[in-house]
């Protein structure tokens, strides 16, 4: 509670504290990445469904936003609503297909679907601009506020983050969210109790896709440009890394993970061009040494250290919130 209050205060005060467009923009990137990671966490953390295609919703919503507003003559609001609706419908279809399987099959199908979308964006140059992507989008004016101003845009994205945080936490506590966690832990028992496991998972999938689309809308506004990279496997993998690094199944974990990944990516890119190698190494290292994620993992390591220090006391450590995956 205290931590959240400090975090919120820090976020609100951030533009005054740093006084630099560069850092404010990094803050905006973190906010957008947080929304994406939180939406993926609905699947990974609360649903136990590991998706490697979550960039699909980010990328498709971004492409649609820019295409509709720059080439199809949509206004800003109509374009945004249409992009998010269409992407959510795509999530309905993809959810239907991916949920024909579970576990590893689910992962394979989401990856394959996502890479097919990437291939379309890359090859269908007449529509998507191919490798060059689509550009020329402008951030809208809202209530006389010019979102081209980095500070204004930062607060604009922050509103969406707050909404995502609130609605996703409401979702997790709702009956649907609770039964989703039931299907994660005990799918057969849930089925025996008469729950429609498939429907619960599908609705959660669509919900996650919706928030992925919201992140995509903000992504399009932020970059004013979209290229196939937004749909690429590395983008999906980065989102998954944010979730895993921050600790799955917690509300705040993905935000921490998003901040870590975005900061690391920006810092590393400033010095070397080997981000992909680092991404790979982090993946391997986290899985091998800190499979529960950084936040619970650090807690566990601290627990082990403490245990070593007071090895005379035989009392067991208090149970952590670890959960069988």
């Amino acid at each position, binding site marked *: 509670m205290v931590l959240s209050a400090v975090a919120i205060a820090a976020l609100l005060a951030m533009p005054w504290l740093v006084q630099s467009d560069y850092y404010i923009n990094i803050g905006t990137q973190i906010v957008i990445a947080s929304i994406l990671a939180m939406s993926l966490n609905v699947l990974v953390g609360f649903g136990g469904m590991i998706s490697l295609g979550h960039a699909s919703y980010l990328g498709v919503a971004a492409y649609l936003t820019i295409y509709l507003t720059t080439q199809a003559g949509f206004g800003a609001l109509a374009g945004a609503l249409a992009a998010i609706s269409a992407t959510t419908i795509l999530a309905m279809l993809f959810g239907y297909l991916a949920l024909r399987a579970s576990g590893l*099959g689910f992962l394979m199908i989401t990856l394959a679907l996502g890479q*097919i979308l990437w291939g379309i964006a890359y090859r269908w140059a007449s529509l998507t601009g191919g490798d060059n992507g689509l550009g020329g989008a402008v951030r809208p004016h809202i209530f006389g506020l010019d979102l081209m101003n980095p500070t204004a845009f930062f607060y604009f994205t922050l509103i969406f983050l707050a909404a995502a945080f609130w609605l996703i936490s409401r979702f997790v506590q709702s009956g649907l969210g609770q039964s989703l966690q039931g299907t994660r832990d005990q799918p057969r028992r849930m089925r025996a109790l008469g729950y429609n496991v498939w429907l619960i998972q599908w609705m959660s999938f669509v919900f996650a896709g919706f928030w992925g689309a919201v992140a995509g809308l903000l992504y399009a506004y932020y970059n004013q440009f979209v290229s196939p990279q937004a749909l690429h496997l590395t983008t999906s993998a980065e989102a998954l890394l944010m979730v895993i690094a921050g600790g799955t199944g917690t509300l705040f974990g993905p935000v921490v993970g998003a901040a870590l990944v975005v900061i690391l990516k920006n810092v590393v890119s400033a010095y070397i061009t080997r981000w992909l190698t680092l*991404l790979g190494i982090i993946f391997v290292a986290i899985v091998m040494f800190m499979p529960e994620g950084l936040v619970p993992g650090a807690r566990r390591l601290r627990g082990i250290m403490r245990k070593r220090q007071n090895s005379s006391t035989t009392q067991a450590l208090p149970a952590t919130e670890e959960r069988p995956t």
Partner: protein
Amino acid sequence: MNFWVIQGLNGLAFGSLLFILASGFSLIFGLMRIVNLSHGAYFMLGAYVGLSAIDAGVNFWVAILIGGAAIAVLGAVIERFILRRLTGQPLAQVLVTLGIAFIIADACVWIWTGDPRSIPMPHQLTGAFRVQQLAFPIYRLFVIGVAFTLAAALWFLLERSRLGAMIRAGVDDLNMARAMGIRTSLLFSIVFCLGSALAGAGGVLAGPILSVYPGLDTDMLPLALVVVILGGIGSLLGAFIGSLIIGFIYSYGQALFPDLAYMILFLPMVLVLTLRPTGLFGRQAI
């Protein structure tokens, strides 16, 4: 008419390359329940290793062996020292292979730069095979021949040898196979090495047709996934038929609707997942 025949042969050649990649992927998945997301990267790395071997003056046939052997060794090391430590954690294994795929992909850009390179064809196989007005590159016919031979050899290995019987037992029921005294950890190493070697050698073999470039890995990996989803898990026949179907769809699609060739790949996935989620020849749902 000519168009359909030529594109059909192209599809067959591309499907053949896919089969060499997907058969190993499917075997590894079927037996070990590991979705090896490095498999595309193995394919690309094998091609680059073969290219360097040829640059160093080795002939094409030896280069294929070197590419296959190098990736087999890499696969053995990864299986023994990383994947085995994560036994029983399939999701952790997938994420590790994804991380390794990124590292390999980046290392390839580092070592071989980002420029696409083509592997020169062996001179015995240059030129075209002619029937009336039809001309078709001999090398592609050769690749088709290799894939069919490989399919027959793998079929023989799996269905007619003692090792194959043990692998099949492991695919069907791992715990029971273990209880019968089969050394499954050795089996895992053999299958992972074999799959890796096929990916590496397949990369060299594909070099003259697809050429080698950064991104070859992520181009090929999803196709291998689609093949396995289509054909069914751990099924050799499924991988074979699936590869040919995807090869044809991709080849005709690229010729007829170049923009939409990738979009058409959705079609078999939608059909199979809707109508038969086990895949065409799979016995268990994926």
